[in-house]
């Protein structure tokens, strides 16, 4: 509150100074008055636009947990009495769509908010692990490229700005994230587009593509989607051949990911929880790219290099999940697929004594 008083005071003093200047230059108060009116109107419009963006669905969608229902933060735990959860899963997009605990008799949370790195996973564990019971299980979802590093930026930091403690945000982004949170008008063109969408009534929530029991894509569409995914990954990680050796850059990224995974595992085990690696399935359209050679280079060699004894549940192998009807594209499980897969994982964990 004090900051607002100072802001108003400075605003008033500046305007008095402007008035005095106008009186001196023009021998009249009129230009000063006009200036003040323009100022007030401009500020009102600016704040109005800022508020419009702040309350838009687009802005909410930039955050990992706008409703405070995904992570057990200070707001969640005051609304919910459930504690001592059996299990949580970490992971990126693949994990977000793979795990659905709705029909399982376990207390579990899916901590994947979509695109999320292993470093984000580690920060989420640091911030929210207390929801787990003693010896609770932590599923670390291994995606095809978990073992190599990718660069993240302001948008990734901003996604978790309201989720994680500020000390968990990369220091170079803290001030920017704070400003963007309060003044999303600073997003520039994206903010302007949002204002237009709000005005014309087009700022709806994005439909949940996974909320289906079938695959809406034809065979040709699935092949094309898989090819696009592969092309995107190759571009993102500068890969020429999926079966070629790691590039120098990806070797460096591999070292980073080994270090992060070891830190995450140390953190989990020090607190008495039990980690397990889960490799989710992909459709046959994508699996044909993930040959044995690819899996060895990008997945299994990574897990071996971590040098920790962690159980691995690998559902990419075999044809159990080849049915395209379990996915909503070539990669992610749909609602039906997620429930079938989750049920299977829970049974396997129980068989291993991890649940």
């Amino acid at each position, binding site marked *: 509150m004090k900051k607002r008083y100072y802001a108003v005071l400075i605003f008033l003093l500046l305007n008095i100074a402007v008035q005095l200047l106008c009186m001196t230059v023009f021998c009249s108060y009129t230009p000063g008055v006009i200036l003040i009116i323009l100022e007030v109107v401009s500020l009102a419009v600016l704040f109005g636009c800022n508020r419009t963006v702040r309350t838009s669905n687009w802005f909410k969608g930039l955050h990992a947990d706008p409703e405070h229902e995904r992570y057990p*933060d200070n707001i969640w735990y005051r609304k919910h009495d459930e*504690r001592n959860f059996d299990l949580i899963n970490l992971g990126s997009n693949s994990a977000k769509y793979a795990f659905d605990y709705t029909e399982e008799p376990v207390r579990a949370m899916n901590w994947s908010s979509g695109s999320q790195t292993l470093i984000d996973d580690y920060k989420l564990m640091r911030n929210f692990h*207390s929801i787990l019971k*003693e010896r609770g299980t932590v599923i670390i979802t291994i995606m095809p490229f978990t073992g190599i590093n990718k660069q993240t930026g302001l948008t990734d930091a901003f996604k978790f700005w309201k989720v*994680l403690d500020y000390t968990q945000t990369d220091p170079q982004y803290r001030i920017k994230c704070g400003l963007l949170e309060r003044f999303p008008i600073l997003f520039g063109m994206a903010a302007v587009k949002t204002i237009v969408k709000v005005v014309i009534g087009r700022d709806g929530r994005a439909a949940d593509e996974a909320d289906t029991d079938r695959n809406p894509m034809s065979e040709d569409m699935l092949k094309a989607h898989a090819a696009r995914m592969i092309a995107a990954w190759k571009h993102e990680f500068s890969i020429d051949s999926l079966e070629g050796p790691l590039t120098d850059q990806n070797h460096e990224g591999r070292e980073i990911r080994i270090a992060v995974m070891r830190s995450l595992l140390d953190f989990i085990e*020090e607190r008495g929880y039990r980690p397990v690696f889960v490799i989710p399935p992909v459709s046959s359209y994508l699996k044909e790219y993930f040959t044995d050679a690819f899996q060895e280079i990008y997945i299994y060699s990574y897990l071996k290099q971590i040098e920790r004894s962690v159980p691995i549940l690998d559902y990419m192998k075999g044809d159990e999940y080849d049915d395209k009807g379990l996915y909503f594209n070539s990669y992610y499980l749909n609602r039906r697929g997620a429930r079938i897969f989750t049920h299977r994982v829970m049974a396997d964990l129980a068989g291993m004594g991890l649940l």
Partner: protein
Amino acid sequence: MVMSTNYMDYRLMKEVVAAGLKCGFRAFDTARDYGNEDIVGRVLSECMRELHIPREEIFITTKIGNSQQILGNIDRQIEISLKNLRTEYVDLWLMHWPYPDYYIETYHKMEKVYHSGKAHAIGMANYRLRHFERLFDAGIEIMPHGVQYECHPMRTADEILSFCKNNNIAVQAYSPICRMIPEIRNADCLKSLSDKYHKTIAQVILRWHFQRGTVPVFKSTKPERLRENIGIFDFNLTDDEIREVSSLNQDYKYHLESASCPGY
């Protein structure tokens, strides 16, 4: 028993603290991170003057927050707290959380401040056994005088209590009645004891704390509740009844530590 003052404004705190002092309460808990240490100081100094209670009769606990641990100037932080609280010393000065990478160094600095007399006792809040082990392995000069942690029938934390008793460390229990969540309110054994002794469930639990040797730190904004809470010294639970209440334990933590202390 200790009265908590977190997140109260001046008007409410003055009313509650004055009522508490008149009932017989003398111990008050606050923390830098509650954002109202200065209000606690103002209220207490006014109440002590108005009710003619000397400072020596009042027991003040305050705590160092995570951001102060990061700053590292612990000797400066006690000065800020003393100024806020309008006193020359605090009776118990706690580290609010075992903030990773900082808590061991913070405790060593607190030991130095203890020697200055500005804190009559030092300790910590929200520690688990692994935090104590790490701290003790790093070497301490002064055994903590007091610790504070969440403790109630659904979270008895027996191993921490044993550890404290073995090391002669006083224990304060926050959320002592687990905010009377439905599982506590509807517990058969508590209802039955409440009927037997003609006491409320909250009074039964507070008596359980007293007999176990844990000092409850509770928050109430209702003067009548304060009178009720202090009315626990005219009955006694049997050993079996203590065990029966303790059997509600399911390691249930209302407050999730990692949400307040990342890396906990």
